[in-house]
């Protein structure tokens, strides 16, 4: 009796296992498909960047790495357009904006999350109200204003534009609210000033949030197109995105060069992302970005 019963459970267990294995295979098949969709354009980009113009669209037979890779595509792009200047401008812009953003947002967020003061709610409402306001709604008056301040065609205009976002303050505040108040209270009793509490306690604790904000700000500033398009007119002041677009317009037949330029423009963001990504999901979870 007992034996039969055992046998039955065993069978049931086996079929369950079988189902699980089939499910796993199915899961991996889907994942593989998604991965291919996601990564194929990038592989194509890499492959095309070392091909000659004629080879790029040869499908029959299609080769990923041509017999004679045209590495000099990667040399030519620096001389055909002032790419180095564009990269320099973008690096300066992105680093300054990201640093300012991290510093001023976390500073303001500390106050909103951990301090009590007059007009706190009103001030925070001003931030919240603008989050749902697309920048495109006020970009024109903003430009007119900047122009009257003499900031037209200056990198400084781009910095002012992107360094003080409501989003950063909101994100950091959400994170700080998750840090227990007792921690600050204890430090206050020990006689620490608010500035020291911020610097010695809050900042070291907020790595996930800071990483998340860094990724967002870095990626957005590095990849911004419309902002530089409006503000930066002189060629030597342009950013890499404008340069790349210029490149595509000018040399629409030289696909190899365009792809090489694109690869170069992707490298920095990918490095930043890979360095910070281990904090990323945690950061999104703890900043209440999930809503």
């Amino acid at each position, binding site marked *: 009796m007992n034996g039969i019963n055992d046998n039955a459970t065993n069978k049931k267990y086996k079929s369950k296992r079988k189902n699980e294995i089939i499910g796993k295979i199915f899961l991996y098949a889907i994942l593989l498909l998604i991965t291919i969709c996601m990564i194929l354009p990038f592989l194509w980009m890499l492959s095309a960047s070392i091909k000659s113009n004629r080879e790029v669209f040869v499908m029959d037979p299609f080769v990923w790495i041509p017999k004679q890779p045209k590495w000099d595509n990667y040399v030519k792009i620096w001389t055909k357009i002032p790419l180095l200047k564009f990269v320099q401008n973008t690096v300066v812009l992105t680093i300054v904006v990201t640093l300012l953003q991290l510093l001023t947002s976390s500073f303001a967020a500390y106050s909103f999350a951990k301090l009590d003061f007059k007009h706190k709610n009103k001030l925070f409402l*001003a931030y919240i109200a603008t989050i749902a306001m697309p920048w495109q709604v006020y970009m024109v008056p903003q430009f007119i204003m900047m122009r009257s301040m003499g900031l037209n065609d200056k990198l400084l205009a781009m910095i002012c534009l992107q360094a003080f976002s409501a989003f950063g303050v909101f994100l950091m505040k959400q994170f700080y609210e998750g840090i227990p108040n007792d921690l600050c209270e204890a430090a206050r009793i020990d006689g620490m000033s608010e500035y020291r509490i911020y610097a010695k306690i809050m900042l070291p604790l907020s790595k996930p949030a800071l990483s998340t904000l860094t990724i967002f700000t870095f990626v957005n500033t590095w990849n911004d197109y419309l902002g530089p398009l409006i503000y930066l007119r002189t060629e030597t002041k342009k950013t890499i995105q404008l340069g790349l*677009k210029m490149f595509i317009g000018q040399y629409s037949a030289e696909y190899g060069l365009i*792809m090489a330029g694109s690869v170069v423009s992707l490298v920095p963001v990918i490095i930043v992302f890979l360095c910070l990504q281990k904090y990323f999901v945690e950061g999104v979870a703890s900043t209440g970005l999930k809503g």
Partner: protein
Amino acid sequence: MDEKKAALMQRLETEAAELMRQIRAEADIEKKKKLIVKRDSIQRKLTATRNNRRISRETKRDLVAYSFIAPNFIGFAVFTLVPIVFAFLLAFMNWDGSNAISFVGFDNFKRMPTDTFFLAALKNTILYVLGTVPLTMIASLALAIVLNQKIRARGFFRTVAFFPYVASLAAITAVWSMIFHPSKGPVNYILYKVFSVPQDQLPKWFSGSLVLVTLVLFSVWKYMGYYMVIYLAGLQGISAELYEAGSLDGANTWQKFCYITWPQLRSTTFFVVVMLTINCFKVYDIAVMLAGGGDGKLSTSATVLVYYIYQNAFNYWDLGYSSAIAMVLFVMVLIVTLIQFRYEKKLEA
């Protein structure tokens, strides 16, 4: 000096006493609380004056707090709040940016119904939003559920899915326009060779009515990784006990999704949909780079609102009309956000 101080203290003391009397007499608890707060603040002022402190502890506390906010707030006020107010005013003005500005009331808005390019932009933007928001939401949720399982190389898959989001638009649109090139691209080549679609019927991905479809496909591909991360964060907030309880009750995978995952993710979905809608309404660079060709000009089949805002402002220098169109954009975003907020409230109740 001392006389002044004495007078001030006298006044504060009587005020405090008067308030104390009112507090005792007041029956309404809410009003009572307010009075107590008021009295406390006077009491503190009194102590500060007595101890010869120039600024009270309260003021000092406020000043410290403001010093934290100031660096960000000043920049934010000057470069965001002021232009927003300016934008609202400009929508009712006629201005070319250099000559005299004049008030024209609703004239800018009255021009819209007869402006065919504006109507095309409005229609395309709405269609784009209607296509992109649900598709991206579904794709990112599915991806998040799959990547929340215990599988090998999970980190790798997550990173890959997030790649298109961090990649710069100019670069990946260049790849897309090559891959979907109507005559030379590999996609149409496969359609021609494998599915034997006749050469003259091969889809022209970047023109005509198909261009919106391409824009939606591209957007889903680019943004689903980002919203996947938000969903992942939401999924990790669901307690495992709920699923265990579900298993004990014999729920299958689909039932678990319907009765546990989906309801638990409600606030996440709300956030995702709001953010997606806002982001989709401001579409511009995707359209210009995929459908704009070399000169970046959009035809009526691919035009979007932000493109027309830009054109009116920086090509025709019709700042009033441009701002009026921007207001249309804003009102649409606002309406959608409000509807979603109300819906969310109703669900909570």
